[in-house]
């Protein structure tokens, strides 16, 4: 079979990227061109169900969200470690299995600690 430049996944991906980007840009442009435009002072206010906003919306926020994000990063890295191990699982044998289980138990202790520190309790 003769090979061509379109067997390259990167080239295919660039075409896919272009097609999806074009579709998205088309939708944005459609609405921007065809919709009417009008603006006044009341309309420019953020819509907060009739209340007139007195301050900027971006105020300090509960730290809970930040904690969830930190825990997410820890466990997302764990998932990233698990994927190559899962593919090669049969070749690694019992030694690979046991070492990954030790790693998982250490992370479970971390999860248990976070649970005890009430990171996931939203009251």
């Amino acid at each position, binding site marked *: *079979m003769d090979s061509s*430049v*379109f*067997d390259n*996944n990167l080239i*295919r*991906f660039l*075409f*896919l*990227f272009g*097609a*999806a*980007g074009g*579709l*998205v840009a088309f*939708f*944005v442009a*459609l*609405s*921007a061109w*065809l*919709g*009417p*435009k*009008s*603006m006044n002072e009341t*309309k*420019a206010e*953020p*819509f*907060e*169900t009739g209340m007139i*906003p007195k301050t*900027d*919306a*971006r105020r300090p*926020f509960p730290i809970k*969200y930040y904690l*969830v*994000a930190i*825990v*997410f990063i820890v*466990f*997302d890295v764990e*998932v990233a470690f*698990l*994927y190559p191990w*899962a*593919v090669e*699982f*049969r070749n690694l044998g*019992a030694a690979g*299995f046991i070492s990954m289980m030790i790693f*998982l138990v250490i992370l*479970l202790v971390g*999860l248990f600690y976070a*649970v005890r520190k009430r990171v*996931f*309790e*939203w009251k």
Partner: protein
Amino acid sequence: MWIDLVILLAKIAVVFAGIMTGAFVLTWAERKQSALMADRIGANRCAILGIKLWGLINSLADALKLIFKEDFLPPKGLRVLHAIAPIFAMFPVFVTFAVLPFGPPLQIAGKEIPLQILTLDIGLLYILAFGGMAVYGVMLAGWASNNKYSLLGGMRGSAQMISYEIIIGLSLIGPVMVFGTLDPGRMVVAQNDLLWGWLPKWGIIVQPLAFLLFLPAAMAETKRAPFDLPEGESEIIGFSLEYSGMRWGMFFLGEFAEIVVLGAVMATVFFGGYQVPYLFSGAEAASLPGFHFPWGGYLPLGEWWIVALRVLSFGFKVLCLMWLQMQIRWTFPRFRYDQLMRVSWREMMPLALANIAVTGIVIMLVSR
């Protein structure tokens, strides 16, 4: 050379048209099915020359309305971030489908044409990577709108989506261990094997718990009820509050498209992709294409019939899984936020880890 380009563009067109059609029909199905479940009539007003098509014209009218509506940009928000947020909501969904095979490889004139846009060895990682990009849409929309309710919705949305992304990642480890590959194409081929000579080795049969974890986690990623806290239209309206026109529509088009793509991912990983039970092509079954039943029956079929049956079977599975997501959305009430976080981290997470451990032990016992 040029024929390759044409084939590639044709495949992209087929995939995009499929997703768009699916999303369009879903906006209609959502209204009709909810009406059916709530004993109402549902969309039935719009008509072109008296033709209503069971309310399908309503969806068309909705789309037209969104296109001709004012595209509002809040002057007090962050204009650039506000403008790109809907792109992040829609773009990754359309790109994700590329690694999923929607049919068996075609043999035309000595050339093999795989029915998937990208044949990637790391296909599942690609799905996770682009699935993760959808968080940016919600977060940027909430942040850039300069509106307290939007910000609340955006924060809730991002915390919810990253929490359930972990579950998605962990629940897919089990099928990867069983099939030993990250390539969805090879995963689908492996699922045509038979367990004990009669049971198709589909993902849901070898990994039932992984599917039960993946389905709710995937639904949480779409931000639809019972996981619709980022929108919560009856309390905070949500991250899309300061959007209008088609850029508002893009968030929800992306959401419906995500239902289609998630249905396709679940069909590929857990329901055998394009495979039909007991159906083998000539290359797979010693030049005897057709159904090979475990009780010894043999029903010969032409190669092109097999290809057609397999493409149809993929479409049918995706439709069933889309219907299942609709049914769940209209059956369960919304979670409370503390319940949402507890279910993900304290209940699903240990279950997903236990699934990995048990899968590992079973595979080692079986392969010994």
